[in-house]
């Protein structure tokens, strides 16, 4: 295989990986704030993308406005879900909350199927289809666009978590909820904002990936890849989520080239298992010290 073709595969792997990374980040945002694994994250992505698509078709919106609609719908949905369901379960064990988010994901997928059928729909893309030629290397604009947009969003998240009051409050709650509350941080507000923020990050990922994989009610299954990415990176670590996502995307795209088709779909999981054997808390995670 030529180097040029290899570069092409790696770049499209990084594009897939960017989506996984965004998915992993949204899982980690909620996990850090609330110690909950949100099973419904993929379905929230799917529903907000569907809402944007429906609005775009009904009103003939330009694409950037569609993105705004998706993000706004996601924010509203995140707020609603946290307010109506999750907050009632504060104090429940995380197994209980896990089942609640599972119930949510079933409901959202069924709801989307009822509203928009379970068919696949094409979704308009921000990016052209003419490949860019860089010397012998040909790159798809979609891949480059997804990577650039994701990196931009990650930079925004970094800024939010580093320099804003909300970001500091979220980090404080992630470190020690009780201490954060004693410092006057409203933990409930952080919960609510975390759900909104995660849903919004997911919505961006949804609008970016929908043109590539088609819009369908099954799109939510991407949450499994996001979860895998977050675990590879070390659950709870945001740089880890990005690294895990990218690694997973590249491995997934390279594997079919070198390995028989029979084990293609197992490769991400074999990689994951191998990494966990060496580093039980992921690439960048720390093994939690347990105290009595």
């Amino acid at each position, binding site marked *: 295989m030529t180097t040029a073709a290899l570069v092409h595969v790696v770049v499209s792997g990084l594009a897939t990986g960017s989506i996984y990374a965004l998915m992993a980040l949204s899982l980690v945002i909620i996990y850090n704030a609330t110690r909950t694994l949100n099973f419904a994250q993929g379905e929230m992505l799917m529903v907000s993308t569907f809402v944007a698509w429906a609005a775009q078709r009904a009103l003939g919106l330009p694409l950037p406005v569609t993105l705004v609609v998706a993000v706004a719908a996601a924010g509203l949905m995140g707020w609603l879900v946290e307010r109506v369901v999750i907050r009632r379960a504060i104090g429940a064990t995380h197994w209980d909350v896990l089942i609640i988010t599972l119930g949510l994901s079933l409901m959202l997928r*069924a709801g989307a199927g009822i509203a928009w059928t379970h068919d696949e729909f094409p979704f308009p893309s921000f990016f052209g289809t003419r490949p860019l030629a860089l010397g012998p290397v040909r790159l798809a604009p979609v891949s480059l666009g997804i990577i650039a947009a994701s990196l931009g969003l990650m930079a925004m998240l970094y800024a939010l978590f580093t320099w804003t009051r909300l970001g500091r409050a979220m980090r404080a709650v992630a470190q020690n909820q009780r201490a954060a509350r004693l410092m006057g941080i409203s933990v409930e507000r952080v919960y609510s904002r975390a759900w909104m923020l995660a849903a919004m990050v997911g919505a961006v990922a949804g609008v970016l990936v929908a043109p590539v994989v088609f819009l369908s009610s099954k799109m939510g299954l991407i949450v499994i890849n996001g979860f895998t990415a977050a675990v590879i990176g070390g659950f709870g670590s945001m740089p880890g989520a990005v690294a895990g996502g990218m690694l997973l995307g590249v491995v997934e795209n390279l594997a079919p080239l070198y390995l028989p088709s029979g084990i293609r779909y197992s490769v991400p999981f074999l990689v994951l298992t191998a990494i966990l054997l060496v580093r039980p808390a992921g690439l960048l995670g720390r093994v939690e010290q347990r105290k009595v």
Partner: protein
Amino acid sequence: MTVRRALLPGALLVLLAVWPWVAPRYFVFLASVVLVNAIVALGLNLLSGYTNQLSFGHAGFFAIGAYTAAVLTLRAPGVPVLVTLAVAGALTALVGLAFGVPCLRLGGLYLTMATLAFGFVIAEILLNLDTLTNGADGLRVPPARLGALAFATDTSRYYLTAAVATVLVAAAVNLVGTRTGRAFLAIRESEIAAQASGVPVAAYKTLAFGLSAFYTGVAGGLFAFVVGFLSPDAFDVFLSVDFVVMIIVGGLGSVPGSILGATIVTVLHDGLAAFQNYRPLIFGAILIACMLFMPGGVTAAWSRVARR
């Protein structure tokens, strides 16, 4: 006191025995599925409820048991069903032990992920071992045999399942009184305290994996005979998730909880089938309501009511 304690299990046993006489044929089949799921839930609960290792890969163990039983019956038709089930359980237990050792290092979500990955890989292997499993086309399972007896009707399969389930439930109930059971309880309460009291935590956690896999493998074998047809896509991640739902809705670390949870989830899935597209919507809403109003599952809610 002992009479009163024996009342409920006794009544259940009687119900189990007369069920095919009072229920329509379809409900006999459904009851077999409930019992199969109850065995899995019990096995999963041994692992998750007692040693805190939540597995999202039990569909994988279930599939190993089912395919072992099916392939064994196809290749060696003379083997009695109890031997077949024991082999299915033992082989699955071996896989469980082998998988449990590396999992010792993993905690919480990392273990969840590793088990999830295990489930995916097993489904993939089944799809590709098509000389044994017939791949995506699926495998027709001949009726189980015990000497001259063939389990060819729903009722006979039901009794086979019920008998095996009763033995396994009794074993699980009695386990709590043994050294192993006490070790599991100690680990459930506090891993560190158990370790400090001289319980070899690592050995027992691995044992829990093996035991859980054994239960699930036997259940898988029964499942193969009860439904009579296996295909790899029946053992997907959603099945693993269903098993987890059973034990959390029923109650973690509780034998009656496992049985209740398996019954609730199986019957709900079946009863809501008529609603077609609305089924997951209703099922999801019930799950949410269940966890909001009965935190800790049905058994926890029951004991709160009983204490009042």
